[in-house]
């Protein structure tokens, strides 16, 4: 009996301690993750930065409904515990208009605030929306294969695999499709993700503020090589980019039907690959190969 009561008391204090310590822990974890990581929480471009800020904004607004509960719950448990019979006991108390209005009203107001924001952010951060900038965006066509990423630079007529070259400070417009199962394209430090699907095109506009190297990946499980399907994004200056493209055209093999057929086979590549020229209409051809639109080149390289 006595032992029972002691344990009762311990249980009543613990929730409070627990709530406080988890709160502290959460904050600590969050700051650690922010400073040293490869995720969007450590942004390297304006989109990822906005995403991070929205996340923090949502947390702060939501705190308005959550924090009161964290305070009121331990207090209630303490005040109305059976052992001391300290609080008033009203077993039939079941309703109060002011409280009712508060508990429906407050969440409703918060949803209105967050909903208003959400509406605008959805438009503003639509991945299809071109980014405002003085320069025209760099266009890159990305094709998801098992288990690799092929990047085609139509204006430069070069291609790279598992490595993508972009210009720091200049928007880049990715046009994406898949030569195999559905995948999802993402460079976490630059922004969000978008699915790539066979026979369909999706788009993603991104910008790297400074030169640097960022990890990119497929986030949608697609089989045995999934964990290895990574690519490096190099953000470089315009001059370096141009030099790189010229060097590629001069020295690298073409991405022709044979090379494509090899790439299209499921495999994990040991190292990135480069191509100095690209078969015309490869990107649209991969799409059309599934839709039956313009028979040009199927994902497996057959049927021209």
């Amino acid at each position, binding site marked *: 009996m006595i032992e029972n009561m002691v344990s009762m008391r311990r249980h009543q204090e613990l929730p409070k301690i627990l709530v406080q310590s988890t709160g502290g822990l959460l904050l600590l974890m969050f700051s650690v993750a922010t400073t040293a990581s490869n995720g969007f929480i450590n942004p390297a471009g304006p989109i990822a930065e906005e995403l991070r800020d929205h996340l923090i904004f949502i947390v702060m607004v939501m705190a308005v*409904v*959550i924090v009161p509960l964290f305070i009121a719950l331990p207090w209630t448990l303490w005040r109305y515990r*059976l052992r001391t019979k300290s609080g008033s006991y009203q*077993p039939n108390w079941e309703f109060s208009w002011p409280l009712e209005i508060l*508990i429906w009203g407050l969440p409703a107001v918060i949803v209105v605030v967050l*909903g208003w924001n959400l509406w605008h952010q959805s438009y503003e951060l639509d991945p299809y929306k071109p980014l405002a900038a003085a320069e025209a965006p760099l266009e890159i066509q990305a094709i998801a294969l098992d288990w690799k990423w092929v990047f085609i630079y139509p204006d430069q007529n070069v291609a790279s695999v598992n490595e993508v070259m972009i210009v720091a400070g200049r928007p880049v417009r990715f046009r994406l499709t898949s030569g195999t199962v559905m995948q999802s394209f993402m460079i976490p430090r630059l922004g*969000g993700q978008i699915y790539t699907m066979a026979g369909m095109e999706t788009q993603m506009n991104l910008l790297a503020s400074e030169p640097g190297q960022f*990890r990119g990946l497929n986030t949608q499980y697609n*089989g045995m*090589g999934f964990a290895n399907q990574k690519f490096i994004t190099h953000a470089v200056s315009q001059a370096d980019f141009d030099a790189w493209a010229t060097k590629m055209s001069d020295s690298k093999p073409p991405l022709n039907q044979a090379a494509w057929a090899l790439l299209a086979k499921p495999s994990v590549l040991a190292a990135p690959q480069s191509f100095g020229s690209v078969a015309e209409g490869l990107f649209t051809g991969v799409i059309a190969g599934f839709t039956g639109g313009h028979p040009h080149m199927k994902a497996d390289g057959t049927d021209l």
Partner: protein
Amino acid sequence: MTVESSFSLLGTLTPQDISFVQTFENPVMSEFIDGAAGSVLVIGMIIVAALLTYYRGWKTLWFDWLTSVDHKKVGIMYIVVAFVMLARAIIEGVLMRYQQSIAVNDPGVLTPDHFGQLFSTHGSIMIFFMAMPFITGMINYIMPQQIGARDVSFPLLNAISLWLTAAGAALVMISLVVGKFSTGGWTAYPPYTGIEFSPGEGVDYWIWSISLTSIGSTLTGVNFATTIYKNRAPGMTLFRMPLFCWTSLCTSVLMIFAMAPLTIATLMLALDRYAGFHFFTNDLGGNMMNYANLFWLFGHPEVYILILPAFGVFSEVISTFSGKTIYGYKSLVVATMSIAVLSFTVWLHHFFTMGQGANVNAIFGIATMLIGVPTGVKVYDWLLTMVRGRIRLTTAMLFSIMFLVTFVIGGLTGVILANPPVDFAVHNSLFLVAHFHNMVIPGVLFGMIAGYQFWFPKAFGFRLAERWGKASFWCWSFGFYLTFMPLYVLGLMGAMRRTVEWFRPEYLGWLQASFVGALLLFSGFILLIVQLIVSVRQRDQRRVPAGDPWDGRSLEWSNSAPPPEYNFAVIPEVSGQDAFTRLKEQGKAYASPAAYDDIIVPKNSIVAPVIGVGAIALGFALVWHIWWLVALGFVTIWGAVIARSFVTETERVIPASEVRADHEAWLQQVRECATTPREQEDTSANVGRAEVLA
């Protein structure tokens, strides 16, 4: 596969498909673990069979359980299935956490293929064969008693639903020993799960196990909804029902409407795989986006199918252990109903990233956040239920309180995910994995554990050991935070789900912490089993024959523990909410009824087990293309249904004299029991007759 092989006696099945043979031929760690899992299953079944033989239990098993259509027994059997499957799925979760915690720039112990099977079986089992049977069993056991009914509307159909679910679970278990399971996750998105990219039996195991249980759940929904509409005791108007019945009603309605898209989607996928259709293939007009829509048209309501009954349990537990009527009853009913309706309007938030454009995303995002309003209301209603009460921190109550605290954190991350642009950043990441475990573990699992602690004495006649229950509670709680908070961080750091190997050293510490947490969760599960064993051994000191150990408020506490087969000797008359508390306050509890009538109860039936066995055979045969067995399974199932329609004597009468003798004897016993004050709830003084609180 050649034509000959598909028409041979064993279809596409070969000796190499048996897991032990694989382990023997290719003795690497991953195969060894697989072989060990298969062995545990086989040895476990042999031990159970041996024990049954030793204790001469086969007859009891068959006549008292397997052929029974009593809603209480069906409910208990559902929960047994849930516990067995929970054991497997937790171990798989721990194994995955172990793999991930050692696989930083290292392949670890599991092959990618094995890891793929693990997250697919873990997810599918947890949702379809742990959570669904658990809530279905809980509703089965409690709801008819709460509305003052003698059984569900269609008792045999109820048993058939159980056996269809059990058949699905059996298929998943068989895949441990014979062949492989899918690697397509619990969502099984094509085209990856199409025949081109996933040849072999794996996806077929997923398809048939899920199809069977989804049909079972649809039938359950029909059964429960009909029961609540039609079988309520006189005076039990809808707005006098306990909240658990309201949430059961909403869940049943959701089951009726939401399971169909899943059944359809799995069958369409099967047509793609077996018959060369092109619903979801890459080419020839197939479109996987249709699958995504169908799947989540089921998938989102599904999470509410799971969580609403748990909400119901929390309402009952919090109100009972606060010794107080529920705060804002009508408000909670309205909130539950709104959640049920809104849950059909938000499915697109599972694929904001599919490229449908800003306005569509924004509409579904806002709809998703709207659900937060009634959910927030519920949380505060539960809090206000405790206010001005007399709170006792029993195990069931502790789980409910930890649910409240933890669930709002999950709600917060849910609102984050509802924002389409932010979702672009965390979709498919461990942040998402943390979020949904943050909802299903405190929400569904804690709810079911709380319900199990709360109603166990009712079902078996003795209380569970609180000390072990509380030990388990602390393991579950700390284990949850330690396992899943690091996953939120990892998600923000760009770590994705379903990943077998990592290449970023900064993940290591978080992954290790998470693994330790998973071990704690596993300990929590083990302690629940210890609690059960200890309580069974001490059952004589823990008995509550009078049937009301917690000063309960609703009708299920008004009968004996365990209750008689027919639940109520005389159907009670209900005059308001908290029906049993009312009777106790008016001094009318345990009064002898004026008269007794004959009671008609359904007879046992072998139809349901026969259908179950037929369904296992059918599913197994479809997986392995054993066409003669497909035909046999099909004929067995429908043969049983047709044969049953010729059986005319399906009921049995319990004469009024027998009912009177039993009931009066019990009433006499109750009147002799001393009443227990709430302070002594957890002592042997508690024999199930409550002292009214003041």
